[in-house]
């Protein structure tokens, strides 16, 4: 019998170690696994490399993890968000490194990492500062830049519903990076608003397959960055 459920976000993230690379799903607040991130703050792991499209807003979720100075490097495409000062302040103070990646290249690097592809060539970024120092090669008369697949030790994502085998379905644009990230980590942790028995979900409609998922934690009423920020919340 397979049952990937764990009792709490705290239990789910307990073994994330200092220096780990952690992929965190979300595009803005859509799909951001706030409860798992907060559990990671409580857990205390530091010197993390975080792979995520953005850097959070306000003083909760990803922004709170950064503000707690647990992150030494961010790999992302858009670390600037209206009204967010946590990342810019840390970056200007030299307290966090940034590896800026075009959004599609970020998605493809994660996809490649999860699919056993070490590197690939793409025209995206050629002739820009983001291709400087990288290998170039001409295919079909057009210059391409070599980009490497990306893997992580842990992935934290948010689903709408998961089953006990770790099959996951998402909610609208909250899906974004989660399916790729699930494939590219040693340990993938899903928080889901609903957790059901294996066999309940429509097998034709499953988005992330259980083989990619290690732990499922039920978070029935997931918080949203915007609601927390409107309430003036900060974490911890």
């Amino acid at each position, binding site marked *: 019998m397979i049952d990937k459920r764990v009792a709490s976000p705290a239990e789910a993230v307990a073994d994330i170690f200092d220096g780990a690379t952690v992929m965190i799903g979300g595009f803005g607040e859509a799909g951001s696994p706030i409860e798992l991130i907060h559990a990671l703050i409580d857990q205390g792991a530091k010197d993390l490399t975080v792979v995520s499209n953005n850097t959070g807003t306000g003083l909760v979720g990803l922004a709170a993890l950064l503000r707690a100075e647990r992150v030494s490097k961010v790999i992302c495409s858009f670390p600037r*968000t209206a009204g967010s000062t946590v990342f810019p302040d840390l970056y200007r103070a030299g307290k966090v490194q940034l590896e800026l990646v075009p959004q*599609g290249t970020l998605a493809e690097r994660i996809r490649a990492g999860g699919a056993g592809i070490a590197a690939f060539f793409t025209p995206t970024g050629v002739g820009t500062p983001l291709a400087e120092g990288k290998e170039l090669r001409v295919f079909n008369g057009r210059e391409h830049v070599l980009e490497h697949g990306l893997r992580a030790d842990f992935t934290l994502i948010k689903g709408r519903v998961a089953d006990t085998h770790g099959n996951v379905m998402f909610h*609208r644009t909250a899906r974004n990076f989660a399916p790729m990230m699930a494939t590219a980590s040693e340990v993938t942790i899903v928080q889901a608003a609903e957790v059901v028995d294996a066999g309940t979900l429509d097998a034709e409609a499953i988005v992330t397959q259980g083989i990619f998922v290690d732990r499922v934690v039920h978070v029935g009423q997931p918080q949203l960055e915007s609601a927390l920020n409107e309430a003036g919340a900060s974490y911890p």
Partner: protein
Amino acid sequence: MSVASSGKKGVADAANPSAGWTREDIARRLAQDIPNGSYVNLGIGIPELVAKCVPEGRTLVYHTENGLLGMGPSPAAGQGDPELINAGKRQVTMMPGSAFFDQATSFAMIRGGHLDLSVLGALQVASNGDLANWSTGADDAIPAVGGAMDLVAGVKHVFVMTTHTTKDGEPKLVGRCTYPLTGRGVVDRVYSDLAVIDITERGFELVELAPGVSFELVQERTGAPILRTE
């Protein structure tokens, strides 16, 4: 940038304040050139105005790179879903026939050449089609690129929608970009408050002047020669 409606004309000509196109005029002019049934990605900010200006009888399918094809307008107050958003992180709606997908699929649509048109803003456009629209390269700036480099590299046609000059009156259409590039030789056409200008192998080429605007004025406010074929 804001998509808030502004009826104010660009200051095309101090002696003739009604000359030139407003933002809405630019959007309307650009929208005329998009064929029915096109799959379109509108950049965050001013390009989003284009969706409000599509001629009657045409249906475009809007792609937003965070994972939705078939994006609709903003929801009515209180009807939104915080997890149904566009690339600008604003709440949107979905039209009949919409589909959600992950980031790899979304960028396969972009990078694989499946989208027909990308409309973007610009800091600078060069006469060889180079585009700079993500960074001024300032030391204290927080660099952020999002999907811009993917869009210009992969989408079939790239239109730029911009004011012809900066707030300080510096040309945005230049001989060579001084800001960091988004992509090389990627822009097909520029729609400004003064004119519609094609990027061709010979450089900038005038397509159309805005009402009340002279060719001489456009040339004066452009940092490279503009060809005029009549």
